[in-house]
Every structure is written in structure tokens, then in C-alpha cells.
């Protein structure tokens, strides 16, 4: 994903001289260094000063540039929420925050570096578009769309390599959920690296005669209500799956849509109200309940509630 982001930035840089990139001393990790290498004049390393970086990005946007600002997801919005709120969101400036190392799959660096609140924070800001791509191909597409659509964007990537769920022909459609698989018994609504876990879970569940419908909700905000409501109507049960706290992320957003428009049983695969710890990425996902196995369990229990 990160590599894909870096490469896409270079392509965009070649296509549009107004693309500028900012980083906060993490360009080797966020991969903005690829852009820095090609366009040193249009790259601004702001040092370890995220609040200032966000403000500079806002000023660049107010002067006609299209700034991409990157750091780890835990530092933006976490470290500079008020700056994002007042300098970018309120005036609706054309700033693209692309953060990497979202979620707990960051791994060994531990809780200080696990970003499990960022989506809740950023989705709370009126006017922000929020995207969580499911793989490297969708990342490239989403970054392109962010560059060419006016307004504040937040794109959240994760650290580890994730399996491809799309092929090169895929076209990302802003604000539209993607049906990854048709099914009739239950809908799994997933985002980020949980999409591939959902696909894996659905294969297994087929053997139990449970036919799963899967939506990749890569645009978390604005949410594709139509797709969610029709999935609820057609399958009668929903499981959400996200690499984020249960509160304030995908699950909360879907629950609100469902409660308002088409109440059906819903279960949440997400991090419960807790911080994680150091560990390997896969170990952490397992320990904190973010695997195909957890999705399967959630599917079984939601189907029970559906029946009852």
C-alpha cells in the first residue's frame, strides 16, 4: 500500500505541477521519499512538527496548491486534531492527508504507535472525505481520486503488505461500496485489511452452508447508505469488520444507518474498548479479534439472532 502511494504520488507529480508533498520526518516509512527524490522543490519535510505541517498544507491549499501531507495515522489526526479542524475542515481546504501505519497491524512498536482512534476523530469533522483502501491497487486509485476531487481528504493505509483483492482493471468509485461477493444470508461490511479476511471467512462459511454477501466500504465517509440499506434488506443481517476501535468507526457508522433506515441484527468485529500491545502483526490481529475466524464467529451469532 505504502509503495503504491509513493509511486502514485510520483505519477501525479509528473502530471500536475500543483501537487506538493509534506512529511514530518517519516518520508522513508510513508514512502513520500519517492516524490521527494523526483521533485525536491515540491517536497517539504517539516520535521517532527505535525501541527505546523498541517497548517503549512492548509496555507498551500489556500494558495492553489494540492498538498498531500503524510505521517503515521496515530499522529494525524491525533497530534494535530485542532489544526485539521480549524485550518482545513472548517474552511474546506483542498488538503489531502494520507496516513500510513493505521490500526494495530503496525505491530511491535506497540500502543503508542497503534492508531485505533483516528477514523473516529477524522469522521467527526464535517466535510472530510475518508477512505480506507483494501489493497495496493485500490490505494493507487483512491490517491488519484483524492488528487482530482476538491476538498479535504483523509486516506488511511496500513503498514504490512496485504493480499491483493483487486486486479489492475479495478476502478475505484468514490462514495460507492464495492460488492466483493454476492450472497443471501448475511452481509459482511469490511474495510482495509479486513476485506481480505472477510473473503477468507466467506469461503469457509460456504462449507457451513452460509452464503455471505461482502461489501468493501472503502469510502467510509460519505458512507454509501444505499448499498448498506439494500444489503440489509436482501440479507437481513450485518457484520462489520474494521481495524479500529469498535466505538466511532465503521461499526458505529453502519449501525446508525441501519437503525435509522432498516433495522436488522448487526455484529461488530473491531477492537473492543482497549489498547493493544507489542507483538507481531498477525499475532496482534489474532489476539484482538480481527481475523477471518472472528468474522466467522460474528456471522454465526448474527445469523442466530436473525433466526430468533
Amino acid at each position: 500500500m505504502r509503495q503504491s502511494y509513493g509511486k502514485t504520488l510520483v505519477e501525479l507529480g509528473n502530471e500536475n505541477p500543483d501537487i506538493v508533498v509534506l512529511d514530518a520526518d517519516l518520508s522513508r516509512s510513508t514512502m513520500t521519499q519517492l516524490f521527494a527524490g523526483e521533485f525536491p522543490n515540491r517536497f517539504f519535510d517539516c520535521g517532527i512538527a505535525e501541527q505546523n505541517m498541517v497548517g503549512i498544507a492548509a496555507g498551500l491549499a489556500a494558495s492553489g496548491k494540492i498538498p498531500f501531507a503524510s505521517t503515521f495515522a496515530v499522529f494525524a489526526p491525533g497530534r494535530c486534531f485542532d489544526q485539521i479542524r480549524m485550518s482545513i475542515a472548517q474552511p474546506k481546504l483542498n488538503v489531502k492527508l494520507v496516513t500510513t501505519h493505521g490500526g494495530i497491524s503496525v505491530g511491535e512498536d506497540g500502543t503508542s504507535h497503534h492508531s485505533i482512534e483516528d477514523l473516529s476523530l477524522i469522521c467527526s469533522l464535517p466535510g472530510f472525505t475518508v477512505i480506507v483502501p483494501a489493497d495496493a491497487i485500490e490505494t493507487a486509485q483512491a490517491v488519484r481520486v483524492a488528487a482530482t476531487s476538491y476538498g479535504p481528504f483523509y486516506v488511511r493505509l496500513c503498514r504490512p503488505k496485504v493480499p491483493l483483492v483487486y486486479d489492475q482493471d479495478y476502478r475505484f468509485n468514490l462514495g460507492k461500496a464495492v460488492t466483493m461477493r454476492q450472497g443471501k444470508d448475511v452481509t459482511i461490511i469490511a474495510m482495509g485489511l479486513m476485506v481480505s479476511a472477510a473473503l477468507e471467512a466467506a469461503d469457509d462459511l460456504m462449507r457451513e452452508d452460509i452464503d455471505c454477501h461482502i461489501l468493501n466500504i472503502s469510502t467510509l465517509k460519505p458512507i454509501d447508505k444505499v448499498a448498506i440499506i439494500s444489503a440489509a434488506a436482501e440479507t437481513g443481517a450485518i457484520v462489520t469488520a474494521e481495524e479500529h476501535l469498535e466505538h466511532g468507526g465503521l461499526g458505529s457508522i453502519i449501525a446508525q444507518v441501519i437503525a435509522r433506515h432498516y433495522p436488522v441484527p448487526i455484529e461488530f468485529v473491531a477492537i473492543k474498548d482497549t489498547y493493544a500491545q507489542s507483538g507481531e502483526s498477525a499475532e496482534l490481529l489474532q489476539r484482538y479479534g480481527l481475523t477471518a475466524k472472528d468474522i466467522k464467529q460474528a456471522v454465526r451469532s448474527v445469523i442466530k439472532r436473525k433466526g430468533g
Partner: protein
Amino acid sequence: MSLPKLGNSSSTTSADNVKAEVFSSLSIKEMEEIAKRLRRHIITMTGKAGSGHPGGSLSAVEIVTVVYCRLLRHKPSDPQWSDRDRFVLSKGHAAPLLYAALAECGYFPVDELLTLRQMDSRLQGHTDRAVTPGVEMSAGALGQGLSFTIGITLAGRLNSQDYRAYVLLGDGECDEGQIWEGAMAAAHFKVDNLTAIVDNNRQQIDGWNRDVMNLDPFNSKWLAFGWHVIEVDGHDFTQLIDAFNQAKMVKGQPTVIIAHTIKGKGVSFMENNPYFHGKAPNAEEVEIALKELE
């Protein structure tokens, strides 16, 4: 000229006074009159609104007068003109002052000043760039304007545009860490098209800076961060003009003008009185203040 000719009714607006490109050069005597007019606006606006921040608006009147009468290249008829010089008000609570200056320049009718802080007014309690013509930055949460202005100056450099950007900071505002992140970055990026002005009235909300959070040695802090530093009497037009001219000549580093001012300047009972930081004058106080400002 960026401001209506003195003697014009200030409620006649924009069109007549707008030139394609505005470089104005009012005399000091004329600027004194303008300053008085801005002060009167601040009193009547906040008085009418029943809330707002007169103290820190009054202290920066001369600074803003020089900026709009002598400094800025701008077009009130085309607020988004890409080659304009930019004035960023970082201490967004001084919005009444900025609105008064913008109205006098013709960005919107002077009469509109009386809608300050009312429902559906374009004149929000703190500045909002999305709704008010001529406002460069949405502000109100202190500490963010310098960073924003660095972005503006970097864009100008990338585009080979020769505009300059000015940012007005409060001294209390300089308690914020982000100001010093910006100070470091402005020097690092060598944005010599940026001039910061600190309205150094030595007061913040809870009292004198030295008691709340000491900023001294203020001058040497900026020096140490790599800035060209100029100190002036912030109510003296000649000193301010000289300082701005000097700032334009400085190459390879940003300039800060530390302008020594008096909070509430021009209204006897508001001067150096933290009570009027965020308190509007009542009807009686408005009357007394306006008399003093005749």
C-alpha cells in the same frame, strides 16, 4: 487607495474606491484619521453585538491601518486575485478590527459591520475565510496562523509570484508550541516573503504575560530561531512603516516586527485593562468611548 477618501461617508462602499491594483499611500495624518475610524467601528460593532474582543482589536489598529493603507497590493473587487499580498490574522479574536479595515477598503459595505456576530451574518465571531470576502484564514483557535502563512509564502515561491504575506500574532498566542514550530520552519525554508507582526500588548486573558507565562527574552527567542527582528512602538506610524520597509529588504530569512502596544489603546478605561479583552462595552461605555474617539 485602499481606503475611501477621508470625508467620504464611510457607508458609501466599494465600487468608487476600488482600483485595479491597489497600492495606497495615505499620509500619516490621513492614517491617524483612519485609525480613529477603525477604533470607532470596533466600539460600535462590539457594543451592538453585546460581545466580542475590543482590547486586542484596539491594540493593533495602527498595525492594521499601515498594512491596509500602505502595504498591501490587493483588489477589494477581486478578493481571490492570485497575485495579491496576503494579510493573515492569526489572533482571530481581533476580527472586529479586520472587518472594520476590510469594510473601509470596500470588501463589503460598512453598514454590514453592525451585523457582527448575528445569525446569518458574514461577520462571524472569529474570522471565517469561507464566508467573509478578504479574510484569508479561518482563525480563533490560537497558534495556527504562522504555519498557514508559511504555506502561502511557499506557494508564492513555487509559482514565482512576487506577493508578500503578513501575519499578525498575539504575544499571548506565542505561548503556543505551534508558533515555535512555525518559527523554526519559516527560518529553515528561508521564507523572506513572510513578515510576522506581534501585537506585543503584554497582556493575555488572565493578566500580564509575565505573570501568566513569561515570554522574555522575547526578542532573543526570535533571533535564536533565525529571524530578523525589529522592535517598534506599535502605535507609531512612522516606525511601523520603516519596519515594514526594512522587512522587504531582508533576504534569506523571515522578519518579525515586535510591535509594542497597549491593549485597549485609545479608550481610557480599556487601556491596559484585561477586563475588556473579551467584554463588549455597554451602551454607556460605548457613548463615553465614542466621545473620546471624536
